[in-house]
């Protein structure tokens, strides 16, 4: 199994509070991604990183920011959490940017915003 951990695994927070989710990898993979999974929507890309300090937006980036100061860590921040951000968040990694490779996913973080 690829060495990917996510923390926390579960979090309950209140509307308007800041939240940071952490993804940590031990594979030294260049590419890292944040997805959210919601019923009826599958996996939707929030942000991704193609190197240290190199990040870009995905299809559902509004309300989220990311940072990557080290190869192994990719942080997802909700500056002011809203109930619509209640979801399961998955981090993923890949070692190449080309087509012919797969992503490895972390175990997920279940976030509830009350």
């Amino acid at each position: 199994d690829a060495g990917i951990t996510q923390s926390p695994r579960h979090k309950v927070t209140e509307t308007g509070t800041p939240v940071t989710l952490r993804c940590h990898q031990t594979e030294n993979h260049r590419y890292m991604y944040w997805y959210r999974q919601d019923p009826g929507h599958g996996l939707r890309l929030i942000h991704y990183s193609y190197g240290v300090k190199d990040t870009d937006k995905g299809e559902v980036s509004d309300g989220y920011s990311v940072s990557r100061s080290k190869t192994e860590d990719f942080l997802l921040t909700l500056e002011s959490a809203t109930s619509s951000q209640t979801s399961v968040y998955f981090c993923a990694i890949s070692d190449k940017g080309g087509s012919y490779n797969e992503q490895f996913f972390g175990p997920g973080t279940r976030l509830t915003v009350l």
Partner: protein
Amino acid sequence: DQQVKQNSPSLSVQEGRISILNCDYTNSMFDYFLWYKKYPAEGPTFLISISSIKDKNEDGRFTVFLNKSAKHLSLHIVPSQPGDSAVYFCAAKSSGGSYIPTFGRGTSLIVHP
């Protein structure tokens, strides 16, 4: 606008029979396709893939078929086992564009003993 569609949200199959999960795509630039399997409370895991230069790829009980003219792929599981019960995501990528896959919404497979 969904570029990758899994039109069956769920599928129920008897143990030992064949499971067929379908996926359609609209972007003709997609040339690499992947299937991921996801158990509850776990992250998705890669299952099998196929490039557009092939029309079939087999790995044990799992076979993926690609019909480029119809922009359709399917995952066959034979024989189905209760442990195959999971959500299956289809994903597609383009070698000429972004390396990031586009995912379908998933199909929940239940295999009954």
